[in-house]
């Protein structure tokens, strides 16, 4: 199988969907432009025409309503925003309208749309270009929330999202766009709602999603060399959430760490901890712990941003404490010259 980038996987999934179903549309600021949304839409307008692959006005709220409308009348649009923050202008349409439409009319009309949102990070993006917010969308019944951590899942989940009959929020972390994985060239589906056991282990379970899966895997790799066996669950979708896989894993390891991709409070990690403690409290042998973004807006300067995002080392610190093992984290994670405000090139994949 070929190794391709996550961004290419998105492109291939979109290409496949456009090819496969004439009702698929691709809409977004910059979709046909020379950079093609980080390469994820490059060449599609040339191939499918400007009636199916198109730019749009800077009207996020209106466009969300418009793609909802077009989806009621026979189309399957994919709307893309280059930052999750831009979608905040369209929350009314997403949450009051698209998410509830099928319910409000008691199943007569559904809204098959995909909204691709890119999570900014790094290179001084600053407070308004670096939020995550998946827990917001996942709080809302009627939405599905998908967050692949690798190219293979990205392609398969995007195809599933486009074919899904419900509004799907598809969140892509910028730092994943250049990672690689083995990806079949043909179209395939990864079902929405199934977590992935990204790594087997026996001492502790890290539940994670999106970019933080990579940090979790790195942590697991490093700790393995010191006799700590870490299991990593990649949620892949946040709603529906595959609690079975989470519960199975924690039932086995008896210890839970959640490596959150966003803010922890009222977030994904609090939901995971709740699911685990509500359901298998007796299996746990110690308090669960969550790790996530610093509970503040994200600063631009790297002097602060370097401490804003959790890293493999922070997860390892929690785990060693949890297991009462003394390991020297500075030896395990030696200082490198790689700047922390750009993706670590050693995170190349496949994972």
């Amino acid at each position, binding site marked *: 199988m070929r190794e391709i980038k996550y961004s290419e996987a998105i492109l291939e999934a979109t290409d496949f969907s456009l090819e496969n179903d004439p009702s698929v549309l691709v809409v977004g600021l910059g979709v046909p432009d020379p950079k093609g949304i980080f390469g994820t839409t490059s060449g599609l307008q040339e191939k499918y025409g400007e009636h199916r692959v198109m730019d749009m006005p800077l009207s996020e709220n209106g*466009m969300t309503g418009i*793609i909802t409308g077009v989806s009621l*009348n026979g189309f399957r649009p994919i709307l893309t925003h280059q930052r999750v923050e831009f979608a905040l202008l369209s929350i009314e349409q997403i949450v009051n309208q698209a998410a509830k439409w*099928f319910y409000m009319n008691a199943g007569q009309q559904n809204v098959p749309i995909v909204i691709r949102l890119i999570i900014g990070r790094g290179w001084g993006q600053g407070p308004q270009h670096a939020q995550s917010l998946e827990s917001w969308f996942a709080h809302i019944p009627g939405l599905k929330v998908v967050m692949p951590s690798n190219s293979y899942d990205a392609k398969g989940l995007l195809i599933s999202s486009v074919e899904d009959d419900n509004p799907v929020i598809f969140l892509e972390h910028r730092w994943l766009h250049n990672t690689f994985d083995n990806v079949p060239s043909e179209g395939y589906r990864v079902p929405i709602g199934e977590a992935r056991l990204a790594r087997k282990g026996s001492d502790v379970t890290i539940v994670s999603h999106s970019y933080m899966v990579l940090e979790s895997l790195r942590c697991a790799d490093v700790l393995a060399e010191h006799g700590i066996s870490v299991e990593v669950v990649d949620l892949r979708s946040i709603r529906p959430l595959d609690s079975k896989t989470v519960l199975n894993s924690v039932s086995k390891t008896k210890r839970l760490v959640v490596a959150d991709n966003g803010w922890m409070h009222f977030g994904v990690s609090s939901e995971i901890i709740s699911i685990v403690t509500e359901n298998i409290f007796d299996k746990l042998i110690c308090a669960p712990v969550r790790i996530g973004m610093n509970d503040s807006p994200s600063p631009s300067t790297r002097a602060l941003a370097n401490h804003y995002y959790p890293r493999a080392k922070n997860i390892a610190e929690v785990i060693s404490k949890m297991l009462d093992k003394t390991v020297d984290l500075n030896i395990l994670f030696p200082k490198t010259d790689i700047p922390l405000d750009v993706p670590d090139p050693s995170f190349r994949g496949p994972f």
Partner: protein
Amino acid sequence: MLNKFEKNLYYAMLRIRMVEERIAELYSEQEMRCPVHLSIGQEAVAVGVCEHLQKNDIVMSAHRAHAHYLAKGGDLKAMLAELYGKSTGCAKGKGGSMHLIDLENGFFAAVPIVGSTIPIAVGVAWAFKMKKSTNIVTVFLGDGATEEGVFFESLDFASLKNVPILFVCENNFYSVYSNLKVRQAPQRKISVLAESHGIKTFTGDGNDVQQVSKMTREAIKFIKNMNKPVFIELETFRWLEHCGPNGDDELGYREVGELEKWIKKCPIESYKNTIIEKSIVTETEITQMIENISSEINDSFNFAKESVFPKLELLNQHIYKD
């Protein structure tokens, strides 16, 4: 039938009026347990526009949707059952008065968040264009809705992509208790806002069903011939309270005499006078109409009242489509 179209205009307005009067009358029984926004006084807009629409043309509306739904041919029984929260309701009771739907008859949706159906309607119309359908979409909106940013975003896109949509703004001068003058600059004219987006506009008297009808005919011709959207602004007036079955003029939020002036311009009465004068209908025919409508209304309310409530399973159905 002679003068069928003219009679239909009258019949449709009368029917809407009588349905809403009955809702107002029975609301105090506390069996229609959802907010209702009645359009008594504004019937000419709904009817004058919708009489020109084909069954597969689509209509969308907002919180004050009864008239639009009925004028478009929406099922009366299903509407009333919806108000009663019954399983036979057009949304099985899940929506209530503010969420009417009748796909069979081209009424796609109404929602209570002001302005939010406007872009959705533009999207539905855009789909017609892409499918090379000859159908059009009509979206009804109030003067208040033109204050929402999404209204302008929708105008821009409709104009940019030349989608087959008819925007119908019912300017009744009020948003709840708030007069236009506390919400919009005096020099701001709604139709001009639309025009400034390059959209063809018409303005007129929303209480004159003939004028509305004529204007709509022209508008639809324009939409189909020119492949462009049209915007119509019609002045009209709400007689009852914003939400609920009663009058509220005594609260004093409107100028003294304003309501009376508009009641004198009742769209149904004035059209009745016209068509009787022109011998398009006779008083006897009208009496017959009233009887027919009454009996339809009786039947429909009975249907709604006698229908059963939805079963508990419904609560968790339709969250997601499999």
